[in-house]
């Protein structure tokens, strides 16, 4: 089976959200629905060194859409089968079948499935599989001004950039086996970190 994935370079990402917006524009998404979300993880403290205090404030960005997991939490719970993994590896909602029970969004630890109030069912990142089939890149990847996003067969991305898919605030990659490779920011914290917080909860 084919499997595509994303490479996310968190050391380059400045959190400009062009990826989020180009996707929103391309998919014509409403306010509050974001197929790609840029999470800002921030933390830090005052450190006492002798007689002086120094701060250790840090913050970094993580652009996350759907990771088209090998073991998707969403498809496992979906009662209608609308949420399914295609032969090309993309996890997609069949919008003609979905009943809008939101069970998938309860289960997904990456916030990928999103509820569309108007349509009455779930929608989500489909990896722009139609564009990919025509040999093009997903809209978000092409729009990144920092070239912090890459897309391709996950095996190739892993050959090129390694296999890391773990960084806070993401959950452990062992749970759903996400098809992403992450290059960490120099401030990156491990997945089980509790020192930071989500700095932009209303944006994701």
């Amino acid at each position: 089976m084919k499997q595509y994935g994303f490479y996310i370079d968190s050391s380059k990402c400045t959190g400009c959200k062009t990826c989020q917006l180009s996707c929103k524009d391309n998919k014509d998404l409403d306010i509050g629905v974001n197929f790609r979300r840029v999470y800002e993880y921030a933390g830090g403290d005052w450190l006492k060194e002798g007689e002086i205090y120094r701060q250790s404030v840090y913050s970094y960005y993580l652009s996350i859409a759907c990771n088209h997991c090998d073991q998707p939490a969403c498809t496992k719970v979906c009662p209608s089968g609308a949420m399914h993994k295609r032969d090309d590896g993309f996890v997609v909602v069949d919008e003609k079948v979905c009943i809008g029970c939101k069970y998938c969004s309860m289960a997904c630890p990456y916030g990928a499935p999103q509820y569309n109030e108007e349509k009455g069912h779930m929608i989500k990142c489909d990896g722009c599989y139609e564009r990919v089939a025509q040999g093009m890149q997903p809209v978000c990847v092409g729009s990144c001004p920092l070239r912090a996003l890459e897309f391709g067969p996950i095996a190739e991305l892993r050959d090129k950039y390694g296999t890391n898919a773990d960084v806070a605030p993401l959950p452990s990659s062992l749970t759903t086996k996400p098809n992403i490779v992450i290059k960490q920011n120099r401030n990156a914290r491990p997945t089980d970190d509790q020192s930071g917080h989500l700095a932009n909860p209303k944006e994701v």
Partner: protein
Amino acid sequence: MAWHEWPLMMFTVLAQTSVGSFLVLGGILLSGQLSLNEETRLHKAMFFLWALMGLGFMASTAHLGSPLRAVNALNQLGSSWLSNEIFFGSLFFAAGGFYWLLSILNKGSVQARKGLLAAAMLMGIVFMYAMIKVYLIDTVPTWNNMFTPLGFILTMLLSGLLFAQLLLAGAQSKLTGLYKILPIAGAAAAVISLVVTVLQMIDLSSINSAVTAASGIIDNMQQLQLIRGALMLAALALWFKPLITKNKPTTLLLVPAFVLIFVSEFIARGIFYGLHMTIGM
């Protein structure tokens, strides 16, 4: 508190009440301790049990974004616990309802009816099991623990036993022994429920993701738990009053008691849904 989940709060609490009381009443009916007249009266009173269950199913469709496609919920029967829940819930409703209809109309042989009753009770148990499994999602740490089955079973006991007693009183049953056993069992369930609540509140402090601390999700938790506990105790007081004054329990007393316990369990379920979080963001 997750008020927006009211359809699921209604559905789960009503279903647990219906199945819980059906198991008690079904056991009594199978034991053959009721006179023919009592049985007839109890069957009539059981109309309200199916009314509650029907109301529950109606509420559950309000949770769906596309209720007209509700039948698709059965597509993944076997692999999705939500499909299983709806399937066995429907079987329980169908088998139990059919048993009830035959009994009311006095059709079919006694043996066939008893068989149907036993089958409906079994479906009810499987339905409750599936309902628990729906919420044991490995990516939702606040649900994926023993407090989910405990909470659901305690609702079956508290709300279910009281509702069973209400229907028995409404049917003027002469099983005086049960009028003692049911409130005592209810009180035991209430004590367990309060202990479980305290344990769960302690357990919450150990559940964190990188961006969410379970103990901080519901900011008025203390207040909600106090209201819930007070309502439960008030219901118990009404439930016990006939035992103390040595009177027969009346529906006049048990209806408000049931309303109190129902609201109490409804709030508890709101807390349950409100505690949703994932291991991620």
